[in-house]
């Protein structure tokens, strides 16, 4: 997981550049906020997300490829795990009592605009049944907030049709049954693509001007090698194709 730290006091320009870089870094990451009171389920989900994010999904390959091109080695998926709905709300800046502390922000930024802090969340995954605030309650809060366009996925160990219906009606994108498997996480790929579309556009622009400097690196997973090779020249052309692939 990537940890972003604010260093010593920088000049105004350095601070702005750092902030921009952080935003750019975040734009190239897919950031998942996962909410589950079970440590074991959090561990499992973390592993599922990591594995699925590098198992050769063309879209993620693009991100990684371009990250390498810019000389930045990084993981594909950024994940934040919290163990309760309240902590999730706190993270999203939706609790009234939250202090908005960020060294790089301007002093006048209001707590209601976490986006100004460069924080981005592409996907929220929450357990349904939790002590205190349930996943359904969290869903409702999120859908009534600044974060309403972020896809929310509910996870539950119980297959209750009325519950599923209720969550979907409230705006949940998917309802996954536990125990989670790779095939469940694969269902999230369309949301991945949808959410990072604007980042793709940005990266595409960068790519077009720097195409000579792209190098294809052959790394660990042999499944990915042929896909990387196929990707190199016509990345811009591939993007519409990826959207097609996403529809399962």
């Amino acid at each position, binding site marked *: 997981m990537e940890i972003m730290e604010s260093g010593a006091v920088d000049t105004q320009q350095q601070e702005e550049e750092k902030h921009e870089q952080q935003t750019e870094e975040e734009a190239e990451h897919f950031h998942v906020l996962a909410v589950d009171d*079970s*440590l*074991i*389920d959090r*561990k*499992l989900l973390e*592993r*599922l997300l*990591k*594995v699925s994010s590098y198992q050769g999904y063309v879209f993620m390959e693009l991100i990684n490829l371009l990250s390498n091109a810019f000389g930045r080695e990084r993981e594909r998926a950024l994940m934040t795990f919290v163990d309760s709905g309240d902590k999730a709300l706190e993270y999203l800046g939706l609790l009234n009592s939250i202090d908005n502390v960020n060294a790089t922000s301007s002093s006048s930024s209001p707590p209601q605009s976490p986006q100004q802090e460069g924080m981005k969340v592409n996907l929220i995954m929450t357990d349904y*049944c939790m*002590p205190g605030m349930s996943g359904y309650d969290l869903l409702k809060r999120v859908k009534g907030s600044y974060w309403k366009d972020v896809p929310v996925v509910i996870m539950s*160990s119980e297959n209750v049709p009325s519950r599923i219906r209720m969550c979907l009606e409230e705006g949940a994108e998917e309802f996954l049954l*536990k*125990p*989670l*498997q*790779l095939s469940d996480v694969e269902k999230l790929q369309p949301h991945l693509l949808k959410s990072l579309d604007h980042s793709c556009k940005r990266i595409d622009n960068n790519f077009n001007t720097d195409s000579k400097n792209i190098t294809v690196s052959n790394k*660990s997973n042999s499944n990915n090698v042929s896909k990387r090779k196929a990707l190199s020249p016509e990345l811009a052309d591939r993007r519409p194709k990826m959207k097609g692939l996403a529809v399962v």
Partner: protein
Amino acid sequence: MDLLSQLQRQLADFTASLYREGFVDDQFTQLQKLQDESSPEFVVEVVSLFFEDCEKLVNNMAKALEQQVVDFKQVDSHVHQLKGSSSSIGAARIKNVCIAFKTFCEAQNREGCLRCLQQVNHEHAQLKTNLQTLFTLERQIVANGGSIPAMQ
């Protein structure tokens, strides 16, 4: 047969028996699929977490059931947790005991709950021993130059 082949044969047979006897189910296979060179200890780690969690929950259940007036909702919430985590790692027998356990909680049947608690303890101990055997075999295979065969 050389040592490595023997060990691999042992592992295959032992693993098959664990599935056959219902100690683990397909979810355990899923866990193994998630293990690779970048996370070579994943299964061991998650399984260890589970056993710790299981012990803690069992202690909580025991305490709750000892009370003069049993708070069955409390017991049920512990059972629910254990059911969830056992399901997530593929500990099938423990999960099944939890299903029965829940019904006794709902019926507010103390005796039934205590019996289930005993069963959970028993299954926990058995699974622990079995998985330790499995992990030891895997380590021996790797130590002898082999690699762990992919689960079917």
